């Protein structure tokens, strides 16, 4: 029988994969995808809890998160375009003018 605990563990695994992706990936687009993975891990969590608690608030929040994530992706893509125009690359490591 699959209960909420399984979903929480799955969500934790997905979330950590996303976080590790943000930490190790160089390509801005891959980083953006990793971020989406993190948000969706959260959504999985919210919906699992919502189902177990028989409370709709969690699902409502999940819909908000999907919306916000879409807006976030739009801004991220806009920044990628600006980065490509300025430096002709999508590698995040190239953006290191400021340091120290």
């Amino acid at each position, binding site marked *: 029988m699959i209960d909420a605990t399984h979903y*929480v563990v799955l969500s934790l695994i997905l979330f950590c994969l996303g976080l590790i992706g943000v930490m190790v990936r160089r390509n*801005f687009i891959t980083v953006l995808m990793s971020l989406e993975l993190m948000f969706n891990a959260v959504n999985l*969590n919210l919906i699992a809890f919502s189902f177990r608690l028989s409370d709709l*608030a969690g699902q409502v929040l999940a819909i*908000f998160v999907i919306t916000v994530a879409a807006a976030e992706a739009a801004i991220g893509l806009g920044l990628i375009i*600006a980065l490509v125009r*300025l430096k002709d690359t999508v590698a995040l490591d190239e*953006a290191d003018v*400021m340091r120290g």
Partner: protein
Amino acid sequence: MSLADFVPFLPEIFLGCAGFIVLLAGIPLGRRGSRPVIALAVAALAATAVLIFLVGRPAAGPQLILGDMLVVDQFAVFFKLLVLAASALALVMAAGYLDRAQYSGGEFASLILFADLGMFIMASGANLASLYVGLELMALSVYVLVGYFKLEVKSNEGAVKYFVLGAASSAILLYGISLIYGTTGSLDLETIRVTLAEVPHQNFLLLLGIALVAFGMLFKVAAVPFHVWTPDAYEGAPTPVTAFISVAPKAVAFAMFLRLFAGTFAGEVEHWRMLLWIASAATMIYGNVAALTQINVKRMLAYSSIAHAGYALMGLVAGSDAGTWAVLMYMAVYAFMNLGAFGFVILLESRGYAGERIEDFAGLARRHPGAAAGMLIFMLGLAGIPPTAGFMGKLYLWAATVEAGYIWLAVISVLMSAVSLYYYFRLVVQMYLKEGDAEDESPAEMLSDRWAGAAIAVCAVMTLAIGLWPAPLVGWAKSGLSALGLV
């Protein structure tokens, strides 16, 4: 939910509409520079303040509206007015800067208004969902503002870093929220508070959730070790944006921090206090020590603003009434000092470029004695020297920290304030004791921009006035307390 619920929400509705109007009006008005549209935006901010006074104030005690999603209380009003003042000052300072860089003012002003709307919701959110949405509205607007100078490498780079780290941190915060939802069964702050107060929880998932929410808040206030985005985003952003984001979002992040930790999670204080103690001490030490050798004034002020978040965190560690209103007071004081200091960086120009290097301030006292005196006031204030407001702010934080028994934290902050004198006065030494390069034919000059000058003057007057006559602000900050449901 009834129609009457929308009345106290009118300031927010108005602000949102104003954002769209300013965005559209920027197209026809933009041909005559950014000033007309910025004037419009400032007028909208003023009208919002009036609306808050008319309908957005709690009649008696906190008032929950819109299905308990938001709460209207004195605490929220304090931060809303602070946000309005900071945005108005930053907008006025930005007008000439945008014209010189030839970027349009309409989009800029509307982004500030949208960020303000997000911050209003953060300040008065009574539900983790509404707090999250407010936070994201603020954050998304600010990412764009940081990268507003899209043809400048630094601006873009700052935005990219801020965006990636900010998005990751809000995902982590959200993960924490989902765990708290799962363990307490609610997103409503009051319900969570009651649940936590009734049943002492040792649940691992709950503590994990609280830790992750604390992480998200520490990231937003730029506390060590979650500050890494700050120096780069502050240095890269257009200076008026830096002035704005170093003040308003930080203040409302503290508002949300206080509402969650001094209010909702107060029952679990024994678990999170140690984390905040460490974060506060590390932030003060890191911010001040790292600021010492900076040669870029914006970057120096970025580290300094990290340090100031550390000071304010002391009030949260104290966890008492005195600590809480000291944080409110400190945010207001810090807002004026920091905006004023950035105002001078906005106005300084060296060979057609922004004068951001410390050497650009050399000999300023001789060429522009008034400006140098103004900068001196802000530096004294940031260093916490009487009779400026900065001293008052720190004094109340120290008093609360010592009273709560965290002597060592207070000692660290006093020592680090002493360290901070070094880098603040490096600027003063440049202005007053260095002659500037004798062969330099065109030393950095203060641009004469009446708008920015007036905004800086307001900041200077407030810095001195609060230092000499803090009673009204203290009273106002104290009035925000009862709303939090503290003891």
